[in-house]
Structure formats: structure tokens, C-alpha cells
């Protein structure tokens, strides 16, 4: 007796996994960056502008890894 049957292409599971796994690390990383930036601007409000710029830079570098996973999920077919 067949209880459950899944039909379809196995590569769609791969697509989901690629992006999901690629998002874990950058998610944690961006959280740490934002936390540190808030910390810094709470301690030294006069440097808030500078730490915001640095925060965006850090987010941009970290986010790139997640976006590679995102693009890769389109390439997998």
C-alpha cells in the first residue's frame, strides 16, 4: 500500500536546499554585524554615521554569499 507518493523532479529539492543552506551563515553574520553596529552607536552616538556606513559595507560583503546561493538555485535545473 502506498501511503504517500511524491512525484516531480528531485532537482527542485536541491534548489530549495541550496538557497536554504546558503542563507544560514550570512543570516547569522548579518545579525552579528547589526548588533555590533547598534552597540557601537549606543556607546558613541557621535560616531553613529560612521558606524552605519561601515555596517552597510559589512552587510554587503556578508550578503554576497547568500546571494551566490540564490543565483545558484536558478542555475541548478
Amino acid at each position, binding site marked *: 500500500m502506498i501511503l504517500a507518493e511524491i512525484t516531480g523532479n528531485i532537482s527542485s529539492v536541491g534548489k530549495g536546499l541550496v538557497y536554504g543552506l546558503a542563507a544560514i551563515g550570512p543570516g547569522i553574520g548579518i545579525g552579528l554585524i547589526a548588533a555590533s553596529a547598534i552597540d557601537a552607536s549606543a556607546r558613541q552616538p557621535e560616531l553613529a*554615521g*560612521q558606524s552605519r*556606513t561601515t555596517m*552597510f*559595507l559589512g552587510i*554587503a*560583503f556578508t*550578503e*554576497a554569499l547568500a*546571494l*551566490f546561493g*540564490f*543565483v545558484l538555485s*536558478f542555475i541548478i535545473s
Partner: protein
Amino acid sequence: MLLAAGNGLHIPTTEELFAWPTLGFGLNKVGLLYILAAVLSAIIWIVASRKQQLVPKGIQNLMEPLYTFIREQVVIEVMGNRPDALRYVPFLGTLFTFILFCNIFEVIPGINFPPTARMAGPAFLAIMVWFVFNVQGIISQGVGHYFKGILFPPGVPWPIYILLTPIELVSVFIVRPLTLAVRLFANLVAGNTLLAVFLIFTAYTFSQIWKDPSPLIAIFPFAFAGAVGMMGFEIFVAFIQAFIFTILTAVYVGESLHGH
């Protein structure tokens, strides 16, 4: 699953969403939007700077804070307050407005498509930035000193170079332009797909409420609110991506100016 069962809800695939028919002369909607964005950003800067007044009026009022922002927050903050860095303010300002116009087409009704969600544009911009920071580095530091500064950064014991030099080579000359292009491209593809899914869902639930109101009346408000919220978020993303592209260009060119 509830809705996809036979009622004709069709979420378009990525290929469908990003394919456009050609309009002739090798031009399609993407090319047309690029030309439009270039013309708009040229017009807005030219008109704003044509009759400069001490007390700004009209469009000069709009563009002066942007110019000040690029000059103070991007160039002076990142590249330093030096004459050779300040020469880059017009370049970075134009880059910012061009990318911003390209991105903002995503939420303009009737267009609803960011041309930067096709890889060609971001790739071209990234290659341009690659040439700019390399040529600027060679001009202001000399060929030997520029490449030595990147590949053999001073102040580390020599065995580290076995590990460090290949990493620096790949990260500066390959990963930099690649991430610059992919970041802009992937953010807008994701945003456009997300908007399309929410809007199709809203339209579908709205059209089905009249026929069979059973479960859809509960879902429709959430789909609608999600679509409106995503619109706002995408406007924010359009600004932030233009800003990030500009500031990363400033960082790369600034490193070429000063040395590593």
C-alpha cells in the same frame, strides 16, 4: 496547495517573468529602460546644475542634498578629503542616480520591471568599476607598486605570502567585480519575483472571492497587505542597493588611491 488545485492559479516561472519580446533594432524592453534611465539621470543632473543659485529652487533643491550626501558621506568618509578623491564625486553621483532609476522602475506602475534584474547591466557596470579602480591604482601608485601592494601586503612574515597572495589575487581581481554585479542583480531578481508572486496571489484571490468566497476571504487581506508592504520594501531596497554599489566603488577606488 489549497489554491493551486485546478482553479487556474498560475505562478510564473523565472524564465517567463524575465523574458521580453524584442521590439526591433535589437532592442527590447530592458534596453529601452536602460536608455530611459540614462537619459533621466543625465537630464536631472544637467537641469539641477544649469542655473545654480545660492538659495536653491526647484530641482536644485532636490539634487543638492544628494550631491552633499555623496560628497560628505561617501567620498570624504571613505576615500578621504583629498583633491584626487573629490574628482570622483560626479562619477559616483551619476552611478548612484543611474542605478537608482533602473531599480525604481520595479515599482513604477505600467513598467514594473527593473532592468538591473537582467545580468548584462550589472555585469557591465561591475566591469567598468573594475577598469576604473585598476587604472586609477596604476596611475596614482605606478604599476609595480600597485600590484605589489595588493599581492604582497607589507607587515606580514614571508611564509604567509604562500597562502595570502593567491587569496588576494582571487579576491581583488575576480571576486570583487563578481560580487558587485551579482549583489545588484540577485537583489532585484528576488524583489521582482517576490512582488510578482504577491501581486498574482492578490489578483487571483480577489477574482475568486466573487465566485466562491469560502476560504479566500480570509486570505485576501493578507495577500493584499503583503503586496503593499513589499512595494514599500522594494523602494527601500532600490535605494539601498544603489547606495551600496556606490559606496563599494568608492571603497575600491579609495584603496587604489591610497595603497592597501
